[in-house]
């Protein structure tokens, strides 16, 4: 009997088993490398200031408090994991649910499974290699290519130097590639036009090596998009941040992590200012993280977060990540 998701009882059982095997494979990968699994809290009194992330929140009753207290559901386990790293945890990984409000599409669910890990002493390139290794364990022996952000614009969009290119150049690229007209972006908003060239023109080519499914590691994002990545020592206009693509789909986002408390505070404050400017609600900063970093800076490390539902969808050739979940949010 087909159920609501269109699956027969047999294929449902089969899919559940395959997903269970995937989770087992991922854990085994890290256990074999002596990376410790950590189970960090989902709820936190602090939120994430990044303007593009919208955390869900709930009200919690705590003894001794007259009012219910607002707690945020994590959008990634990054902050508590970094506190553990500061406290001397060594290499760690988290495999579990995270939540992002408003994100629902064939590639997004509000509640989804994330694999995030941190490797001490790893450079950005070391971690890129490990991510590729993990993906090959799951997806088979795919070809791997690394390309810098700037080279990707050169190769796929014909933009010689994206860092000095104008908004007009980006708009011309979109037009030349017959991208649907864009509504609501200021003509001179270079950063957004550049983002559109990346998502509409370049990304569909990433994760395809010589026309076949492969792994593309895109690295050295502009400093503007550094988030919590270190800037490149040789070239401060780029950040030591990378993303991983397979078959045109972003799978993972990693950084050579910022280490000192002051820089974290600066980046957080900048995000809060941006929130205020955009009329978005402010969020309480994670003072516990900032204190931990002040007491002892983050050991030199790189970290990455990977969407497990997307990985499973790729492995099983599903068009919508929801098909690989027990239930999507609209069926839950």
């Amino acid at each position, binding site marked *: 009997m087909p159920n609501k998701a269109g699956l027969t009882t047999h294929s449902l059982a089969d899919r559940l088993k395959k997903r269970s095997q995937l989770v087992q494979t991922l854990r085994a990968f890290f256990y074999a490398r002596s990376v410790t699994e950590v189970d960090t809290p989902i709820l936190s009194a602090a939120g994430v200031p*990044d303007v593009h992330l919208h955390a869900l929140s709930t009200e919690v009753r705590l003894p001794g408090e007259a009012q219910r207290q607002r707690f945020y559901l994590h959008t990634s386990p990054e902050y508590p994991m970094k506190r553990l790293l500061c406290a001397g945890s060594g290499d760690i990984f988290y495999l579990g649910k995270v939540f992002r409000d*408003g994100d629902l599409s064939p590639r997004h669910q509000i509640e989804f499974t994330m694999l995030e890990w941190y490797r001490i002493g790893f450079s950005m390139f070391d971690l890129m290699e490990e991510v590729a290794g993990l993906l090959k364990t799951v997806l088979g022996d795919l070809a791997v290519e690394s390309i810098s952000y700037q080279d990707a614009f050169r190769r796929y969009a014909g933009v010689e130097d994206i860092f000095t290119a104008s908004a007009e150049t980006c708009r011309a690229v979109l037009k030349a590639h017959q991208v*649907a*007209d*864009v*509504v609501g972006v200021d003509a001179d908003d270079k950063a957004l036009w550049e983002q559109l060239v990346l998502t509409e023109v370049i990304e569909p080519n990433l994760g395809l090596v010589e026309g076949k499914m492969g792994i593309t590691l895109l690295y050295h994002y502009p400093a503007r998009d550094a988030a919590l990545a270190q800037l490149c020592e040789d070239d401060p206009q780029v950040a030591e941040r990378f993303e991983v693509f397979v078959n045109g789909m*972003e799978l993972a*986002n990693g950084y050579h992590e910022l280490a000192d408390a002051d820089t974290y505070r600066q980046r957080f404050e900048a995000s809060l200012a941006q929130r205020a400017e955009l009329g978005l609600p402010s969020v309480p900063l994670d003072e516990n993280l900032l204190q931990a970093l002040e007491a002892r800076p983050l050991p030199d490390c790189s970290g990455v977060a990977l969407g497990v539902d997307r990985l499973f969808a790729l492995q099983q050739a599903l068009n919508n990540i929801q098909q690989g979940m027990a239930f999507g949010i609209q069926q839950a």
Partner: protein
Amino acid sequence: MATYSTNEFKAGLKFLMDGQPCSIIENTIVQPGKGQAFNRVKYRNLMTGRVLENTFKSGEKVDAADVVDTELQYLYNDGEFWHFMDPETFDQYQASEAAVADVSKWMIEQDMCTVTLFNGQPISVTPPKQVTLEVTETDPGLKGDTAGTGGKPATLSTGAVVQVPLFVQIGEKVIVNTEKGEYVSRAK
């Protein structure tokens, strides 16, 4: 005027684009992990029927289009306008040639049609799924053939031309599927 934010976008939502009423066919959110979200929107311009695509920065607003589908009875064509009536309120509407153009060959007086109104004016008309029309012209065909093998063109009373089985004769009434423009059966 009412507005919709991109986070209200879904299939079937009616909005205005350059002053023209449009209906969303497909809305996909493009949300990079660390970037501005966009909505990739495929929609139909209800005036022209054309399917178009735009990418909206998330959070943008569009004006709502006052578009409603209503069941109206087709009364008559005065040579310029096609006249309809709401059988409950007796309100009358006149549709221009442009609104009826594609389906005029299926319009039969007294039939109930789905009429799409934009700001109270008909912009498109959908006739009943099946209509019964008289054959006004066709080759006599083969008398003995009742199996319906093969076919021949027949002109119907509204001017529509459809493929009919060889046994169908002038003066007979036939049932036609208006979506496909295909003969269904002889009418009893």
